[in-house]
């Protein structure tokens, strides 16, 4: 089936309550019901939107299974709308992951487990979570989609792999802490803008960046969610530092036009890249 070519997306720049899943589920349900009423096709929530970010020892206490009651509750609403939601996933081996689920047609269709867990500077994720081991796209009603979470975006190999799998939409979910106030824009926001614009342009996709707001442990999350078109041009942008709901209309035809102008994705020499990477790996192993 040819995917629907136009869709209305909504990015919810919310402020979850730290460690209070019940309160956060209510926030999500309310936002999803409103989006359904507003004819939104796809609603996106930030990283760890159901739990909050600085969980530390709370992580196992708020963790859930994909087949558990919270996901089932949200899945019921996904008969009418695509949903991307952030949570702590526990697997059958009692490992814990920072995860983002995609729900559509009444079921969880895909889970991305955060691959890159920052454990440096102000971050301590590797202490509490296990790193994901997969980079896969998913087939949505509106075409192929890739989901990455925050630090994943700082490793260009991650969107590269997704792009080579075939991707229209890069969903970038974050709980990005704001730091650096030497300029009128938070330094982190400037860096993100560069990275996301570059990905949109080089991989010729829509980038949907959904970042949270609010404060935890004295740290602010800066928001600034945005949608960037496949030409690398801003389609919509939410304000920084305050809760917001950002809507945008996406059109697959825009991706097609950009790729007609310059078939970068198609021209990519995957075999060459793999060969050279294997050589690098061989040489490193010999060191």
């Amino acid at each position, binding site marked *: 089936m040819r995917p629907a070519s136009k869709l209305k997306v909504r990015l919810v720049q919310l402020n979850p*309550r*730290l*460690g*209070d899943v019940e309160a956060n589920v209510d926030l999500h349900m309310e936002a999803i019901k409103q989006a359904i009423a507003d004819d939104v096709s796809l609603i996106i929530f930030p990283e760890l939107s159901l739990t909050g970010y*600085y*969980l*530390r*020892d*709370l992580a196992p206490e708020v963790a859930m299974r994909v087949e558990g009651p919270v996901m089932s509750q949200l899945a019921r609403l996904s008969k009418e709308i695509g949903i991307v939601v952030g949570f702590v996933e526990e697997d059958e081996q009692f490992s814990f992951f920072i995860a983002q689920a995609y729900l559509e047609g009444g079921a969880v269709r895909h889970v991305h487990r955060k691959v890159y867990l920052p454990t440096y500077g102000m971050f301590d994720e590797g202490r509490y979570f296990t790193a994901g081991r997969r980079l896969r796209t998913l087939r949505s009603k509106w075409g192929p989609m890739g989901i990455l979470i925050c630090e994943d975006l700082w490793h260009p190999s991650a969107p590269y792999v997704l792009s080579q799998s075939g991707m229209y939409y890069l969903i970038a979910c974050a709980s990005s802490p*704001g730091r650096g*106030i*030497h*300029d*009128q*824009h*938070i330094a982190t926001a400037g860096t993100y803008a560069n990275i996301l614009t570059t990905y949109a342009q080089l991989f010729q996709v829509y980038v949907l960046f959904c970042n949270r707001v*609010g*404060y*935890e*442990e*004295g740290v*602010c999350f800066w928001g600034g969610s945005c949608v960037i078109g496949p030409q690398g041009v801003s389609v919509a942008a939410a304000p920084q*530092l305050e809760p917001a709901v950002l809507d945008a209309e996406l059109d697959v035809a825009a991706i097609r036009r950009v790729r007609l102008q310059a078939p970068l994705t198609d021209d990519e020499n995957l075999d060459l890249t793999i060969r050279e990477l294997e050589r690098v790996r061989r040489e490193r192993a010999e060191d």
Partner: protein
Amino acid sequence: MSELKIDCALATSIITGFLRNEITKFGFERGIVGMSGGVDSTLSAFLTAKALGPDNVTGVIMPYKTSKPDSREHAELAAAQLGIRTEVIDITPQIDAYFARMPDADKLRRANKMARERMAVLYDRSQALRALVIGTSNKTEALLGYTTLWGDMACAINPLGDLYKTQVRQLARYLGVPQVIIDKPPSADLWQGQTDEGELGFTYEEVDKLLFRLVDERKSRDELIEEGFAPEFVARVIQMVQGSQYKRRMPLIAKVSTRSINRDFRYPRDWGR
């Protein structure tokens, strides 16, 4: 100076958001600030008034008999400009009653006692007013340990703790803190003639440049000397930072169990908020 320059609108927006969020999510609406008439506590009061509205802020002025009269005058000037309530609580009776029994106490002990007495008054008033104690310590003094443990450092939340002294001045200027407060020599006013820079032996301008490179940019001692900082100055500041590390951490706990508070029992402070 340029590396210490901050965007004041952005800083105000982040810090007032911090105050509103971290106060209201714990079920409070009000803040209380100990006002010395200096730039740090005045800025704290300005930011809190902006975050919560002037009606929700109380400035507590706590003079001792040797405090300079302009300390109180400046605090009252700032409070009047903001339209916040003030309380004046003279700490002379309790300080003098205590030291009548400790006549040999030197000026450092007396200064520390005063700082801790003010803390005790603030916490008592915060209970009575159902308000949180808003901190007034900046990053420079906290890093240098130029502060009284459990005294002027004590607070529920601190809006200034990540701003160097020179950045405090920038923000104070931006928010309209009275010029006379920004211009006067910084002083804890714990004894007559005391000034921070006289006591420290260097200026805030100088030490902030050094601390920014040392702490924020993680430059090594050798790199700092190569940049032109005097080796003795670098050594002294590093020693001060290292020597006061205990003031910036909670007390050590002797570990005997399998799960000890803050070592392997690690919950966020904003747990469930």
